[in-house]
């Protein structure tokens, strides 16, 4: 596919097995269990080019690697990752400071369909930490605003303290034809925003009550259960399955289709995904223990 051919096109004699060194320009906390890193190549060369939806394998000296979606601006001069502390590697990464060095292998994987979405309304639905892998979509739309129609960003998290990028979202909302709606599963005292599953925002969004099936592209990212019922709801609201894209996650050790871990039937999530058009995997995506 032309899309895949354009992605990850940097010649690497080691076969993408050896990391490149990146320096931490800035590190900051996002929520109680997530943080962001802004990175630049240690040798001063230009930052890698990537497409929204792709991921890197981030290496910590002597500790190991973790596959992390890229969450920055594809047109930016630095590489930004928002990372959730879920295991030994990511917990150690949380301690990184300005000036530290990490290894980066990537960018790997398939990208969100920004080309297919041209001229369309876009609805992005994300849950939890998965707001990070869809943020590049939002940046891409703003970078070339005239090429896209309305943008609706629907985001749900567990509690108000888990919501990512709230400040930035205020900026996004100020753009024309852009709405950003957020909801939580569980409110805390003082929260006056939406409470309820993220799918309740679909009907709530201005374009939600009648998505134009010929003119809407939906991109969904979050826990598989959340994506499952979000897809169901989008279909109920008239979005054709061939215009719904999801991003899947599996255990990854190499990121380049050689270690075997990320397989889902015939697909290697690291190179045939993580972004998939829903109708292409509909028969297997909900199979238990696949």
């Amino acid at each position: 596919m032309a899309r895949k051919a354009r992605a990850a096109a940097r010649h690497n004699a080691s076969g993408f097995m050896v990391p490149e060194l990146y320096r931490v320009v800035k590190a900051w906390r996002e929520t109680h269990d997530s943080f962001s890193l802004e990175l630049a190549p240690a040798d001063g060369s230009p930052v890698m080019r990537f497409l929204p939806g792709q991921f890197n394998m981030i290496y910590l000296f002597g500790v190991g690697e973790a596959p992390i979606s890229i969450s920055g601006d594809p047109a930016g001069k630095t590489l930004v990752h928002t990372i959730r502390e879920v295991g030994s590697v990511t917990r150690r990464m949380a301690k990184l400071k300005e000036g530290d060095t990490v290894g980066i292998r990537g960018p790997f994987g398939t990208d969100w369909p920004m080309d297919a979405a041209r001229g369309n309304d876009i609805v992005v639905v994300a849950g939890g930490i998965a707001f990070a892998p869809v943020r590049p979509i939002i940046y891409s739309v703003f970078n070339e605003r005239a090429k896209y129609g309305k943008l609706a960003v629907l985001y749900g998290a567990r509690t108000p303290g888990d919501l990512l990028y709230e400040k930035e979202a205020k900026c996004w909302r100020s753009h024309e034809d852009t709405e950003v709606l957020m909801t939580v599963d569980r409110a805390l005292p003082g929260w006056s925003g939406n409470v309820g599953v993220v799918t309740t925002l679909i009907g709530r969004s201005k374009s939600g009550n009648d998505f134009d099936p010929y003119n809407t592209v939906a991109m969904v990212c979050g826990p598989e259960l959340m994506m499952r019922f979000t897809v169901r709801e989008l279909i109920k609201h008239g979005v054709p399955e061939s215009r719904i894209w999801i991003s899947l996650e599996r255990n990854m050790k190499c990121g380049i289709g050689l270690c075997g871990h990320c397989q889902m039937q015939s697909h290697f999530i690291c190179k045939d995904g993580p972004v998939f058009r829903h109708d292409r995997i509909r028969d297997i995506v909900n199979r238990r223990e696949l």
Partner: protein
Amino acid sequence: MEKNEIEAILKGHPFFEGLDAGQLSAIADCATDSQYETGQFIFKEGQPSEHFFLIRSGGVALEIFVPGKGPIILQTIHENSILGWSWLVPPYKKQYDAQAVKPVKALKFDGKKVRGLCEKDPKLGCTLLMKFSEIMSERLWATRIQIMDIYGKES
């Protein structure tokens, strides 16, 4: 609001789909236009439950007051949704507070009158009951997903 305006709203709303003109007219007779400003309570826990609402615009927070913590929002009811079904089941008492979080325009239905309609026209009663069951089922599903902690680390 004139009755024919109310009927037009009902006719256009998916919840009342399938009802014939006579039934729509009878139900419209039970409805009045109502508005709430942000912060106003539409009903409070413990009040006799005599109404249900079609939220036409705005948003309503279903809340419970937890001593020591204050009001906690359980769910947000968005526009074009139906609010309230405790008028259907004894002891006909509200179980939560409902507060407008944005300016709300709603149709307020007299539950006692609608119950009376259903007794007179069992077919209408059955249809309405099935529609409310759908709402309850959706809310139950949403609530179960909410308490599942799908974004948690062990999800």
